[in-house]
């Protein structure tokens, strides 16, 4: 009887302990996904967004990137290495063309080739409406490299994969 009593108390406590541990100490994979979730949140824009939120989001976007981040876009002049501040400025400028923006990520494939680096392949979908009323719907496969710097996973390379080659 005593054994059963201990089991009834012990088992739920162990389960609760495991759940708490998962919440308090998220896996590296979850931390990597968090960087993407934050990017998605800060790139996205609602029509009601005020100037203060806009500036805050613009500043926040930069914090997700390494000191310099390499962008590789096939057959476009956008490819190159960008500093964190440049990314913030360009992101702010690009967002101002749109009244609505939604960035979503799908199909994460996360690989840890080294301890302080991660390679993520995924699908990104950017939808929205320009201030002139034009619809935007761009889907791309991305290969991203993130580095762990001061316990944060920061983007150090983003490559657009050419799924359809004209």
């Amino acid at each position, binding site marked *: 009887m005593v054994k059963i009593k201990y089991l009834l108390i012990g088992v739920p406590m162990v389960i609760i302990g495991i759940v708490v541990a998962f919440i308090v100490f998220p896996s590296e994979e979850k931390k990597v996904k968090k960087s993407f979730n934050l990017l998605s949140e800060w790139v996205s824009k609602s029509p009601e967004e005020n100037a203060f939120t806009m500036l805050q989001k613009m500043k926040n976007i930069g914090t997700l990137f390494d000191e310099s981040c390499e962008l590789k876009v096939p057959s476009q002049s956008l490819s190159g290495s960008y500093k964190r501040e440049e990314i913030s400025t360009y992101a702010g400028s690009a967002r101002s063309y749109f009244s609505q923006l939604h960035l979503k990520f*799908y*199909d994460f494939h996360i690989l840890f080739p080294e301890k302080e680096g991660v390679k993520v392949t995924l*699908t990104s979908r950017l939808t929205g409406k320009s201030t002139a009323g034009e619809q935007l719907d761009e889907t791309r496969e991305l290969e991203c490299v993130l580095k762990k710097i001061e316990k944060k996973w920061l983007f150090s390379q983003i490559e657009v994969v050419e*799924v*359809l080659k004209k």
Partner: protein
Amino acid sequence: MEPTYHDGGFNFCWRLRTLFSEPRRFDVVAVRFAGSKVMLLKRVVALEYEQVEFRDGKLLIDGKAIEEPYLHYPCDWNLSPRRVEKDCVYVIGDNRGMPIENHHFGQTSKGRIMGTPLW
């Protein structure tokens, strides 16, 4: 893929169709990105090693004009000849009424083809 398939429409992907057989010309196929959550619907117009070209809106395969009865919008595209690489197919949507630079089309690996729409 307008007008054959409408934006926001609902369909199923028949994966067995391309699992055991090669995609054929004019097949409508689902092309995957990083996974199967987001896919493109496109039509296969050229097979590996064939040469694709557009001249005044007309599709030419290996220099010969191809009839495309599924097209309903006027097209004025021009695209210089290019050869489809090994293990690839050339896919294009049916909505050729839009400018060529805005249309997402081209050569893709057969490994990215997930199947065909069920209807």
